[in-house]
């Protein structure tokens, strides 16, 4: 391990290894303080950022932040690193990479070619030096397009996961929320339920419910019940209609073990989903969720800061060519991200890191009631992410998730953002909305009086 140092106003700050350097350079957030990893002063933080800016990218290949022998995520990162793709930036420092990413000549094609050559630690280090506008500018240059029954990630499009959760998984209550979302133009990314209980029987009945609605209304979208991957695997083997396979993932082997998964299990699930081949226009069939702080929460952070570990989770995600990956940025609580300010920065960091690594990033723009945040903070993050080209966000009735007990973005919030920034739903889903008469002549979502809706939709309202 190589110590790195910087001198600021006559004080010399020394950082014994890369993990410490990355942690001290991280913009302030409560989770790193909780872990005892944060900089002790604002000056130490800037000194760490100066030392980080001078660190060669190649150092991240030579000094893994978690040992190769101890962690299969480290092994995945290093074993799949593409040296040829890395070559154009191989001689750069972290600071030089930041300027390269922002330079006029660095475009979508450059970044797509570069993605397999970047490791999570490189991009995590780089975003620690960036301001919010830079996180947006760089992410907006990246394009990660995925397909199943809709095409997600296209320019000027903003997808929505319709999230119709119910505290006791009541089928009629869920169907009512699905209808509400469809009439408000949501559901092109997926219609995805977090089940209150993830027993196989319950999960199967919800999968049948969603598949039935989708087929009856001929909606071009994909459904998902966010049960544990082992539950979903078992149901696929029984012939239950599974479109997307969901799993929460994290950036260390030990944190994934706390989720009850490892890379081999994810590979088995991805193979099973590929075998079903239910996508009509593409084969991206995995849906992953992540969030800063999950490794610390599981006591599995190895002294690495939460933003770097989050970026490592995207290395896990990209291995399995997912349709959707979203960071559930404010869900975990104020001990990891204390305020609207910390949540907003983390959401933009995660989106930028994911896109640089070639992951189809979305974001659950959200907060809990014990965090210092409110809907104004969510409006800010949603608008910034949409301007930065986020692939999808959540749509929850009235922004209030009555099962999980937190606030996300509403169907209305997404409509307002689409209108404000001139963004549209996925093309296949937009054509369906037009066919149902849900879009008006200005292509705004303005559903007609219920009596004038097509019969299948009208029947759901009865």
């Amino acid at each position, binding site marked *: 391990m190589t110590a790195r140092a910087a001198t600021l106003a006559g004080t010399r700050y020394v950082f014994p290894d890369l993990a410490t350097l990355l942690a001290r350079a991280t913009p302030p957030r*409560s989770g790193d*303080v*909780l872990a005892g990893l944060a900089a002790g002063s604002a000056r130490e933080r800037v000194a760490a950022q100066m030392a980080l800016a001078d660190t060669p990218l190649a150092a991240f290949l030579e000094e893994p932040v978690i040992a190769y022998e101890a962690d299969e995520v480290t092994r995945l990162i290093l074993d799949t690193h593409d040296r040829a793709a890395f070559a154009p930036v191989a001689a750069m420092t972290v600071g030089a990479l930041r300027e390269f990413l922002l330079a006029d000549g660095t475009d979508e094609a450059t970044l797509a070619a570069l993605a397999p050559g970047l490791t999570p630690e490189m991009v995590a280090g780089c975003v620690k030096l960036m301001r919010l506008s830079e996180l947006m500018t760089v992410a907006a240059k990246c394009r990660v397009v995925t397909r199943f029954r809709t095409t997600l990630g296209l320019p000027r499009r903003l997808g929505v996961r319709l999230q*119709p*959760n*119910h*505290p006791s998984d*009541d089928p*009629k*209550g*869920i*169907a*009512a*929320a699905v*209808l*509400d979302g469809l009439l408000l133009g949501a559901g092109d990314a997926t219609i995805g339920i977090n089940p209150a209980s993830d027993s196989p029987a319950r999960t199967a009945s919800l999968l049948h419910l969603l598949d039935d609605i989708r087929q009856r209304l001929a909606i071009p979208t994909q459904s998902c019940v966010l049960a544990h991957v082992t539950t979903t695997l078992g149901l696929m083997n029984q012939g239950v209609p599974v479109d997307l396979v969901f799993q929460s993932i994290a950036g260390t082997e030990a944190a994934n073990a706390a989720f009850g998964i490892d890379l081999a299990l994810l590979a088995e699930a991805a193979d099973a989903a590929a075998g079903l081949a239910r996508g009509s226009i593409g084969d991206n069939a995995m849906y992953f969720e992540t969030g800063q702080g999950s490794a610390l929460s599981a006591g599995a952070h190895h002294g690495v800061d939460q933003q770097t570990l989050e970026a490592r989770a995207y290395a896990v995600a990209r291995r399995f060519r997912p349709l959707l990956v979203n960071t559930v940025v404010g869900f975990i*609580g*104020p*001990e990891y991200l*204390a305020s609207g300010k910390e949540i907003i920065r983390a959401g933009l960091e995660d989106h930028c890191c994911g896109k640089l690594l070639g992951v189809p990033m979305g974001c659950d723009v959200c907060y*809990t*009631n*014990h965090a210092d945040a*409110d*809907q104004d903070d969510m409006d800010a993050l949603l608008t910034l992410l949409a301007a930065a080209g986020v692939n999808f966000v959540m749509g929850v*009735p*009235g*922004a*209030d998730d*009555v099962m999980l*007990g*937190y*606030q996300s973005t*509403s169907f*209305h919030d997404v*409509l*307002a953002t689409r*209108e404000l920034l001139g963004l549209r739903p996925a093309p296949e889903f937009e054509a369906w909305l037009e066919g149902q008469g849900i879009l008006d002549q200005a292509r*705004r*979502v303005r559903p007609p*009086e*219920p009596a004038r809706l097509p019969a299948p939709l009208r029947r759901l*309202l009865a």
Partner: protein
Amino acid sequence: MKPPATDPWASLRAHTPARIGLARSGSALATKALLEFRADHARARDAVGDVLDAAALAAALAPMGEVLGVASAAVDRATYLRRPDLGRRLDAASEARLAAHRGEYDLVLVIADGLSPSATRAAPALIAALLGRLGGWRLAPFVVARQARVALGDAIAAALGAGAVAVLIGERPGLSVPVSLGAYLTWRPRPGSTDAERNCLSNIHALGTPPAAAAQRLAGLLAAMRQRGLSGVGLKDEGELL
């Protein structure tokens, strides 16, 4: 845009507490729906910031047994919210107070503020219903705990010498239900007991599991815990059969 005279959503609302079919103007919510959401958020925020009325709670519990007050090492609410590790440890004075009452106990009942201190108002009724079902258990004094996380119960049980702990704690408030109590049971608790070693009954409130019904479930779980000599994942199936 006003909702039509015959609101087609009215019948669907019977099936879900979700905010469906909200009136809007353009893409935005109508003013009434906007302010109702704010009112619910304010209520949930206030629930987090409430201070536990330990004196009132102790007075309500006193007829049923001795009551000890303790505090975690989190000195105030702001510290509590950011430092879960401190909320799991006793402060020095509390440690000493409990040590003075150390004895041979099968169970200690802990009433903790958690993230919703007002939710503890439901605890005395629950405990009254529970005590009638705990014949044969040697009970430690009740412990009322401030700025407490669930795992503070492990430290309390260790200090008192209790073989099991039941922590009744205010849960993360939601917009629909801002005051809800959770119960966490741990057999042979010790500092470092993991969540996988606990059984949990959540959503104890009038619209979820009411206190009397919760007491019945908890008594069943405690009996099974004692009979099997374990708590947590291994006890799950029996718990659900009760």
